[in-house]
């Protein structure tokens, strides 16, 4: 009897470990690190001089978080978003996507990984005007080699999710800005990515339609998607994000984290800096 209980304990534990393993392999467990920028700098040559767009950025994205990258114009947030989205390579430092250094991938492999793991939402929607709403949503899946029927089914499902299934066969020019951004949200979800990266998603929208779009993003986050939003609007960041990275003049000014209704400064500073502050 005792030994039976013991066996059950052992097997139960083994089964538990096995199942959790499978779950990890299938999908990131909440709290696991997805993207990490380690001491990243981005410099652009400009004539004879060098523009330091970003310097020494440390950033971690964990599964299930809603992160905002905040900063006024010229603060380097677009550069940051390109790096976080692995569209661009850092001049110094490393970017880890799912633990792997993106510098080790060639351009096409990186595109494939990007297409699979990150869904982009842009300020100016960036839908392809020659393709219908549905074809736009199907496109990322085409690049992953998904077959037509599956693409179509998934696109219809996603457009239903953003409440645009009655506009599937319209061209982007025939729908409103808010609707276009919802199409972009549907497209960003096409390959079921781990991260949705939104660059000023409400920038070209009025307050009301902007709120609708933000509600969709929040809903996605509640369902477990990691959302990274780049914005210049501190109110928007504070309203929706859990963690805010504040950028100023190409440097990380501070990192704040939601704690109840307030945000607390969780910036990790080097000891020397801390001393200087004191």
């Amino acid at each position, binding site marked *: 009897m005792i030994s039976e209980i013991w066996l059950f304990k052992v097997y139960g534990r083994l089964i538990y470990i096995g199942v959790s393993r499978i779950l990890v392999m299938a999908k990131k467990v909440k709290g696991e690190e997805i993207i990490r920028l380690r001491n990243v700098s981005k410099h652009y040559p400009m004539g004879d001089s060098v523009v330091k767009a970003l310097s020494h950025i440390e950033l971690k994205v964990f599964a299930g978080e809603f992160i905002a990258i905040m900063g006024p114009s010229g603060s380097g947030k677009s550069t940051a978003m390109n790096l976080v989205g692995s569209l661009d390579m850092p001049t110094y430092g490393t970017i880890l996507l799912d633990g792997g250094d993106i510098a080790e991938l060639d351009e096409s492999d990186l595109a*494939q990984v990007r297409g699979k793991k990150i869904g982009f939402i842009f300020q100016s929607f960036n839908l392809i005007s020659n393709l219908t709403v549905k074809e736009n949503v199907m*496109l990322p899946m085409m*690049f992953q080699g998904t077959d037509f029927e599956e693409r179509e089914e998934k696109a219809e499902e996603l457009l239903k999710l953003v409440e645009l299934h009655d506009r599937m066969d319209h061209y982007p020019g025939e729908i409103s800005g808010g609707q276009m951004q919802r199409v972009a949200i549907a497209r960003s979800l096409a390959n079921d990515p781990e991260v949705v990266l939104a660059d000023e998603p409400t920038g070209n929208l009025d307050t009301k339609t902007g709120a609708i779009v933000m509600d969709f993003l929040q809903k996605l986050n509640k369902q477990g998607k990691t959302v990274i939003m780049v914005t210049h609007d501190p109110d928007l960041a504070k309203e929706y994000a859990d963690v805010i990275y504040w950028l100023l003049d190409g440097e990380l000014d501070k990192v704040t984290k939601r704690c109840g209704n307030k945000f607390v400064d969780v910036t990790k500073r080097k000891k020397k800096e801390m001393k200087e502050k004191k």
Partner: protein
Amino acid sequence: MKLDYLILALKNLRHRGIRSWLTLLGIFIGVTAVVALIGLGSGLQAAVGAQFGVSSTQALTVQAGGLNSFGPPGSGAVNKLTRDDVDAISKLGTVEFATPRNLETTKIEYNDIVVFSMAVSVDDAMEKEMYETMDIEARSGTMLLNDALGRIVIGNNLADGTKNGFDKDIATGDNVLVQDKRFRVVGILKKKGSFMLDNIVLMYQDDLDNLFDYGEEVDIIGVKVKSPDLMDRAKKEIEKLLRDRRDVDVGEEDFEVSTPDAILETVNSVLGGVKAFIIIIASISILVGALGIVNTMTTSVLERKKEIGIMKAIGGTNYQIFLQFFFESGMLGLIGGLVGITFGTLISFAGIIGINNFIGSELLPTIDFMLISGALIGSFIVGATAGIIPAMNAAKQNPVEALRG
């Protein structure tokens, strides 16, 4: 999976502006020219053949000088053929008969209008034989057969008031003035499709002799060979005979024995020249078309830089983006080719119908599927080749820069 990119390319083509389509004119014209030319080839050959009077496989013509001399056949020669030559040729073993023919440009007056046309003599002893070698017969009235002098048979067009220049039809029984002498028209020939035969005036040897005084001279000798297999042998025999009679060496002949094959060869070499010319024009046109596609694709890549950036951001690899532009370019060429084939086929159909009406032949317009598929594949290849470099440029775009537009 490649099919997806082909479909995507087609979708993008739906929204191309008129400028892109205009660049296809080159491909379109080139393919039209080639397809029309090849489609018309057989018809042209028959038409030109008819102009040269190629009909029987058993007929030979002998003339002094050469086929390529100026003026009416045989008339420019210094050392003319004679009636004795005719007799000698008709005695050859391979020859069934030989008929002498004289021809002269004559003044014809009717309805108070003067027109010049070719008069050909008919030998009163060999009327039927001559009609046979020339492959002619009357559509109204009769041919000259044991008739009295002062009678003529005229070609189809010379009787037709809309074509003969007299502003009035000539009917059998009408009188016309030939070199100011009155002749009665007893017959009108069937349409032959040959400019010369359709405007001909046939009269007896004695009549023509009275008008021009030939004596023993003969311009052309029409020869019928006993069987088609003997053509080459007959030709050689006649050549040898005439060399001996005229005392010339091999290679220095001042006469020519023409077989239908030889005439066809001449026709073909003329047609070959025309074909070569059209093919050169078509090639230049296709080259210009290809450059047009390079141009329009390069512009398109620049215009759609942002689109390329978007595609890269959402996971498009360089190869996938290359494929899309490559197919788009190929499809542009293919569409140019398709329109060209349609027009080319229409032109060749219309041309064949025109030739049929002109020479009264019954050529059937044909659709050559090998030619069509060849032209389609060819134009796709031209388009795709033209698109390689622009497509590579598209694929090479840096996603961040491309997204900026």
